[in-house]
């Protein structure tokens, strides 16, 4: 009964979404406040219904109700309880339901907390949200219904794909979806503004926090996904430039650009049209990501639930939303009032430069991801675009941006002073060069490009705090004065510094893990010792065991440094009988920010092939993403709102007043 109730709730949610997508917008055109107000209860009840539906599916998973096809295909009664929960979204149907649930959650939040939104705008936003809901609930009911039943019910399920039975997967998709779907809010705001034909300065104030939240979740989601692939796939790689990874990177880049342009719009009432376009593009790229992953047009190491027949439906959704919103943009953008003016060397100018670079970088990823599809449909030739392509396009485009980042926050609004900014960065520059020289002393001069990368990382880390230092007059005023200023600083200053230094930390991790990694594949017999990066790794023996729904054969290896035991690692091979599938479970030992990574090949008589990686400073990459997210989250808590006060440059202040 609970399962069927969940099914009915989903069907009813579709109908409520239909109401939500028509009545409020009709109210706007008829200038009828009561019809506009229908959007709020519709969005809230929709959230309730989809929540009910999701809870019912979760219930079916937890109690192993194999009369539900979806549960039968993706669960096993012996799974640990945690994986019974994560199995809910470890498959196509359930994950789309989660997507819709998050969409309804965001819609519900707008309805519940947008009490200070102008009613017209709120009605339009909720209507646009309703359209997206209708499309995706329709997709679920039409092509991927998780509530289809089996009668008679099989006694045992087919188990979740073992590679997905992992804590990383428990967190990764929900985070990523929070990001993807969070983009829908700024999209809805943008489309609402276009329909309405005007953008208030207040528009950015409402749209920006949502974008920021989406960006934080996307950042964490991508980092989590990267770490999951790193330890679960057993190849020791962290980013494969795989189309599915790009699918999440593209919206992340677009949201990053949107965040920065929304700042200009919020503070300076400028760049409106561009910001609206970016909001549309960010969500379009999210939809594209969903399409690429869910339709099965791509072959990918990450695609675990692909069905080409569903592709057509998603493609239609994609065309309707992207095409429709861009057409609307073309029609209505002209009616939006253009914003204020400013000099190229200014905070606004710097933010625009950021947008230009990020847009270009996004474009390279889009081309690299879609070119193989286009080429194949035109000529039939099958190609793959991998790391070499992106190293030659994405990296050179992003590199200058990274070098320029520390300058941005030091420039004043309206009219900035580049030389003053440069002066303030002298110390940061010196420190980063010093740090690079220290690294140089350790690794030698063999890798000039890598050293450049290290410098960029350090430069970003230190330079990010130059603005902070300048604003509290560090070393210029007494410490107590600096402290007083530090406490009084708006949180957004800290968040900018944190986010930018997070980029630096990440660059450092990526460069180090890519360039100075050690890798050794060797067959080892019991008692044999391998050496990597000064660590001696000895194979002690093998052990076999049984998990709840798998059998496991693991190897015990002792890691020593200078004869002292520092860790015992046991990488393993697992066999899941329900799926007749084997997985490789890597063992990872973290030393500071560096990691020793072991994964096994086939175990034969008294020996096995072992893949040994040494990944120096590798965790910095993910810590960088975490620091960036903390920066973003901090900015979310800063409810401060202020127009960009023109800050006269220092040298001008020294000149006699006119």
């Amino acid at each position, binding site marked *: 009964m609970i399962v069927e109730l969940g099914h009915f709730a989903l069907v009813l949610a579709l109908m409520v979404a239909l109401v939500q997508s028509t009545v409020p917008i009709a109210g706007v055109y008829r200038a009828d406040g*009561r*019809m506009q107000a229908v959007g709020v209860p519709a969005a809230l009840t929709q959230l309730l219904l989809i929540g009910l539906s999701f809870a019912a599916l979760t219930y079916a998973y937890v109690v192993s*109700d194999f009369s539900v096809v979806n549960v039968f295909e993706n669960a096993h009664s012996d799974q640990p309880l945690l994986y019974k929960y994560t199995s809910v979204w470890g498959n196509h149907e359930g994950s789309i339901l989660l997507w819709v649930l998050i969409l309804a959650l965001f819609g519900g939040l707008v309805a519940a907390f947008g009490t200070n939104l*102008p009613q017209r705008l709120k009605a339009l936003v909720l209507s646009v949200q309703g359209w997206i809901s209708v499309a995706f609930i329709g997709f679920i009911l039409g092509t991927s219904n998780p*509530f289809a039943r089996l009668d008679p019910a099989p006694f045992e399920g087919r188990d979740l794909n073992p590679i997905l039975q992992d804590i990383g997967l428990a967190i990764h998709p929900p985070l990523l979806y929070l990001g993807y779907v969070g983009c829908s809010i700024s999209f809805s705001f943008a489309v609402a503004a276009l329909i309405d034909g005007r953008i208030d300065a207040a528009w950015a104030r409402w749209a920006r926090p949502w974008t920021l939240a989406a960006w934080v979740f996307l950042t964490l989601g991508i980092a989590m996904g990267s770490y999951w692939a790193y330890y679960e796939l057993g190849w020791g790689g962290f980013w494969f430039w795989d189309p599915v990874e790009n699918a999440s990177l593209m919206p992340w880049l677009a949201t990053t650009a949107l965040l920065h342009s929304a700042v200009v719009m919020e503070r300076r009432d400028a760049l409106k049209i561009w910001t609206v376009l970016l909001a549309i593009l960010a969500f379009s790229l999210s939809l594209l990501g969903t399409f690429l992953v869910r339709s099965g047009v791509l072959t990918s190491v990450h695609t675990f639930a692909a069905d080409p027949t569903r592709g057509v439906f998603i493609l239609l959704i994609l065309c309707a939303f992207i095409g429709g919103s861009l057409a609307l943009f073309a029609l209505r953008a002209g009616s939006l009032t253009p914003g204020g003016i400013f000099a190229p060397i200014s905070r606004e100018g710097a933010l625009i430069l950021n947008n230009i670079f990020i847009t270009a970088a996004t474009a390279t990823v889009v081309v690299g991801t879609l070119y193989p599809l286009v080429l194949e449909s035109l000529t039939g030739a099958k190609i793959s675009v991998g790391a070499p392509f992106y190293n030659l396009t994405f990296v050179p485009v992003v590199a200058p941006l990274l070098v320029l980042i520390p300058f941005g926050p030091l420039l004043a609004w309206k009219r900035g002073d580049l030389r003053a900014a440069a002066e303030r960065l002298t110390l940061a520059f010196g420190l980063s060069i010093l740090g690079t020289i220290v690294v140089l002393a350790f690794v030698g001069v063999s890798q000039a490009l890598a050293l450049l990368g290290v410098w960029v990382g350090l430069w970003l880390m230190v330079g990010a705090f130059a603005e902070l230092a300048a604003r509290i007059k560090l070393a210029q005023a007494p410490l107590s004065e600096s402290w007083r200023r530090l406490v009084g600083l708006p949180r957004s200053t800290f968040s900018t510094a944190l986010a930018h230094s997070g980029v630096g930390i990440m660059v450092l991790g990526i460069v180090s893990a890519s360039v100075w990694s050690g890798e050794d594949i060797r067959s080892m017999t019991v008692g044999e010792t391998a050496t990597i990066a000064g660590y001696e790794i000895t194979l002690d023996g093998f052990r076999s065991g049984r998990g709840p729904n798998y059998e496991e054969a693991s190897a015990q290896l002792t890691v020593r440094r200078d004869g002292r035991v520092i860790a015992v690692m046991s990488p393993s091979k697992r066999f899941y009988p329900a799926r007749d599938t084997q997985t490789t479970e890597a063992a990872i030992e973290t030393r500071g920010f560096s990691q020793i990574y072991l994964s096994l090949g086939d175990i034969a008589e008294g020996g096995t092939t072992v893949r040994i990686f040494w990944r120096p400073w590798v965790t910095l990459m993910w810590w960088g993403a975490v620091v960036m997210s903390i920066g973003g989250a901090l900015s979310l808590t800063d409810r401060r709102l202020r127009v960009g006060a023109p*800050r006269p440059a220092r040298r001008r202040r020294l000149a006699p007043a006119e």
Partner: protein
Amino acid sequence: MNSLILWVVMAGVAAGVTAVILIPLFRGRTGVDSGSAERAIYRDQLEELEREVERGLIGPSEAEAARVEIARRVMHLETRSDAAAAGVRAGRLRLAGAGILLAPLAAFGLYVLLGSPNLPDNPQAARIDTPVEEADMATLIGRVEQHLADNPDDGRGWEVVAPIYARFGRFDDAAEAFAQALRVLGPTAAREANVGEALVWANGGLIVEPARDAFTRALELDPANIRARFYLARALEQDGRDDEAVEAWRALLDDAPPEAAWTAAARASLTELETRLGLAPSGPAQPPGPTAEDMAAAQELTVEEREDMIVGMVEGLAARLEDEPGDVDGWTRLIRSYVVLDQRDQAVGALGRARVALVDDEAGLAAVDAMARELGLQDATEPAQ
């Protein structure tokens, strides 16, 4: 009963949701209009600015510039007319209300199309606890499987579940189970033949290499094993070694009691081969037992129908044995069928009758007793010495 509750709950949910959505239509206008919302924001901004001036975060001249800019924007705001008017026409409201009322009805319509309201929840834990008599076959098999997963050395268990798998068409599982039984209980000709036969079924009648090996081993253990000889003859035929196949079939039929079930198939194959090779046909005799047509028909049937057919065949066999009590093969077949059908009492009864009927046939009695041991029927019915 259960589904009635479901309909009531669904109706309740639908009614509640509809009512909540309808509320705004019956209320006055309460929303915030655009102009005042924006003015509120600029007021916020001005206050924020004042706070910063107080804290000395912003210089007076900069603050003044910012103030001027905000003022400029507020002025710009005043000149714009707010489009949200209050004109409400009752007709439109009624239309919107009707649309909203339609939503739950449409939901019920769509749900009836998509849902399975009569199917109750079926959690596995509840199924494990259902009494045996009420449990469905899948649950029973599931229980045995769990038992065997925990006690993989229960050879008898494997032997019980294997024919059931075969009956449900899960031939791969059947072959695996027979192989497990063989592993635990040790090789006999019959067990080797069981494995081989299941492998043949699993491969759609093709005598694959592992099956052939199993039959060969069976013959090593018991050169007279009929099933092994039967399938090996068929294997020769599949390999195109027609002459040898003819030899094998003839030898097999010579040794066989005329009324054995498989002789029809053997004779058909032999006849076909002989015709193809231009040989004189061996004596055609239409024996009892299922004809090729019957077997073909069995392939087309559903599980239930096939079960009925099997039961029918078993009853026919039992009736025939009343008339021809000397048929050893018939008795073994009957007893084995009862065991496969899980009718143990019937099997024991048939064993008793066979012993009475075959009391003069020493070889036959030995064969029946051997099979009874193999099927685990022995203990219950050890004949009084």
